[in-house]
């Protein structure tokens, strides 16, 4: 095999894995949009908040330490213990469920039957609130996420593939980050279990029912409020997974909340209402931007990854506005 071919394969693989990371974020959007018709602007901030909470609990940080110090003139910052990653994750999930209950009780419940744009505005407010709240609670410094996920290139893969190139060519083997592999595995498990849950359980059916028709759902005994709490909890859990993966990759910091912007083109490709769409959309964007950077980037000065996804999304908007898997928009006269 020629080295060029191997490079291309490597680029595609890395693109697929980057795509999985985008899909993880897009998934949270789709879940909430399907069930309640809300475009949740706060999804990215939820990922940041979940990641901060996880690191905070794990390292035994005292919540609101800055606030306490400012008010009482003390100097506290840590409890002095470490919580194992597994328990910290469970505690963080509990926090996200609590968050879902609060969102339903104090925001959604008061905005039932409002226009989508009003609900959207409410989530913008929520995003800024959570951003500030997260900072007050856990401090705004950059934190490192360490839940024991391996990272760095896979040596085994490099050594295994190094001999594949044709003789005389310079090739050092395939470089794939172990973190990306774990992220891919986690994403696959997450999507498969979410799909099975929504297909084959009572609550899963109720989730789909609410997405289709509120009145009919009420008439068979489904409580919309309970369903919204469940949906936001699941979205919070997905945000936590995205937060862990992105946090482990690039540190837990404010820019984490901006990954939401990367999810937008994914949603335009995959459609706002399709879980498989979110996955395929993410993969196409991931592969597309890596291949484009690899093949066309050097000719036009590089850094194409910043805009490629958005241009692709724009083209989709022109030719297929409902996305690849979105419900077809049919106007009957």
């Amino acid at each position, binding site marked *: 095999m020629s080295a060029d071919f191997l490079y291309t394969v490597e680029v595609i693989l890395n693109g697929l894995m980057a795509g999985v990371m985008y899909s993880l974020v897009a998934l949270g959007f789709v879940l909430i949009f399907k069930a309640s018709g809300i475009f949740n602007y706060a999804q990215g901030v939820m990922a940041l908040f979940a990641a901060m909470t996880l690191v905070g609990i794990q390292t035994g940080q005292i919540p609101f330490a800055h606030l306490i110090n400012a008010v009482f003139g003390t100097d506290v910052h840590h409890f002095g213990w470490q919580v194992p990653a597994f328990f910290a994750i469970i505690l963080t999930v509990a926090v996200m469920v609590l968050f879902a209950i609060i969102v339903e009780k104090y925001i959604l419940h008061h905005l039932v039957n409002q226009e989508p744009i009003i609900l959207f505005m409410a989530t913008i407010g929520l995003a800024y609130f959570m951003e500030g709240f997260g900072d007050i609670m856990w401090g705004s410094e950059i934190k490192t996420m360490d839940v024991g996920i391996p990272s760095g290139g896979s040596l085994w893969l490099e050594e295994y593939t190094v001999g594949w190139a044709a003789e005389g060519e310079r090739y050092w083997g395939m470089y794939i980050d172990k973190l990306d592999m774990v992220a891919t595995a986690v994403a696959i498990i997450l999507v498969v279990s979410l799909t*099975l*849950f929504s297909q*084959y*359980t*009572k*609550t*899963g*059916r*109720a989730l*789909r*029912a609410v*997405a*289709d*028709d509120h*009145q*009919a*759902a*009420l*008439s*068979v*005994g*489904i*409580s*919309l409020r309970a369903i919204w709490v*469940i949906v936001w909890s699941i979205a919070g859990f997905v945000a936590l997974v995205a937060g862990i993966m992105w946090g482990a990759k690039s540190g837990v910091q404010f820019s984490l909340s901006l990954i939401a912007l990367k999810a937008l083109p994914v949603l335009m490709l995959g459609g706002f209402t399709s879980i498989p769409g979110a996955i395929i959309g993410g993969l196409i964007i991931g592969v597309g931007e890596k291949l484009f950077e690899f093949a066309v980037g050097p000719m036009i000065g590089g850094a194409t990854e910043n805009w490629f996804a958005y241009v692709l999304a724009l083209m989709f908007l022109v030719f297929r506005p409902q996305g690849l898997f979105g*419900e077809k928009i049919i106007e009957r006269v």
Partner: protein
Amino acid sequence: MSIQNTTADQQHNPAVLLDLKHISLSFGGVKAITDISFDIYEGEVRAIIGPNGAGKSSMLNVINGFYHPQQGEIWFDGKHRQAMKPYEIAYQGIARTFQNIALFKGMSVLDNIMTGRFTHMSKNLFWQALWKGPAEQEEIANRELVEHVIDFLEIQAIRKTPVGRLPYGLQKRVELGRALAAQPKLLLLDEPMAGMNVEEKEDMCRFILDVNDTFGTTIALIEHDMGVVMDISDRVVVLDYGRKIGDGNPDDVRNDQTVIDAYLGVSH
């Protein structure tokens, strides 16, 4: 078949399942229902008729808990019913269909009817997430009952089809199936035959009567087709402009002068 409900002997001393006392409902200044009282016996088919805008659907929505009347009392199954949320009403044993079909369009016929079992499935999220074990057993037991409903309504052939793709008449039948799956004490049908052709109407009539006969389910229905109403109902209540103007056997109601005036118009 196991969709059995207690059947009251209608000949002697019928038991009252639902008793509406002096119900009034208004939206702002608009009065939809003014001081209406009537009752529904266990095991009967009760029709609610009246010209457009008479308050029939509002009445159904009051029974179903979508609307809360400003005045009046509702007695259901021997108990005074407090104002409760529509989904709680479903747990009380009231199921309904809608005038404009309200099905879950993206879901299959089977899944739609399975949602009708929602109130009968009690295993919590933990067991559902585990899937194997109690939740699976519950799923299987309920699935069996749903298959009975599907057989009963003769829709075996379309059970895996997304309902959005079905023709209108079949969608109405699936909606009936979803309500039936709940094994309700009281089944509310809002214009079950609207927009159907003669053949479909005959089918639907047959199913409604079969449901009533086989399972003893109490049925309250709104219908515009007078022929159908007179054929299948035991008692009829007539509404006009939000008031009750007639109540009784189909024959009595048909010959009632006030009712005839309301339908044909009268010169004042």
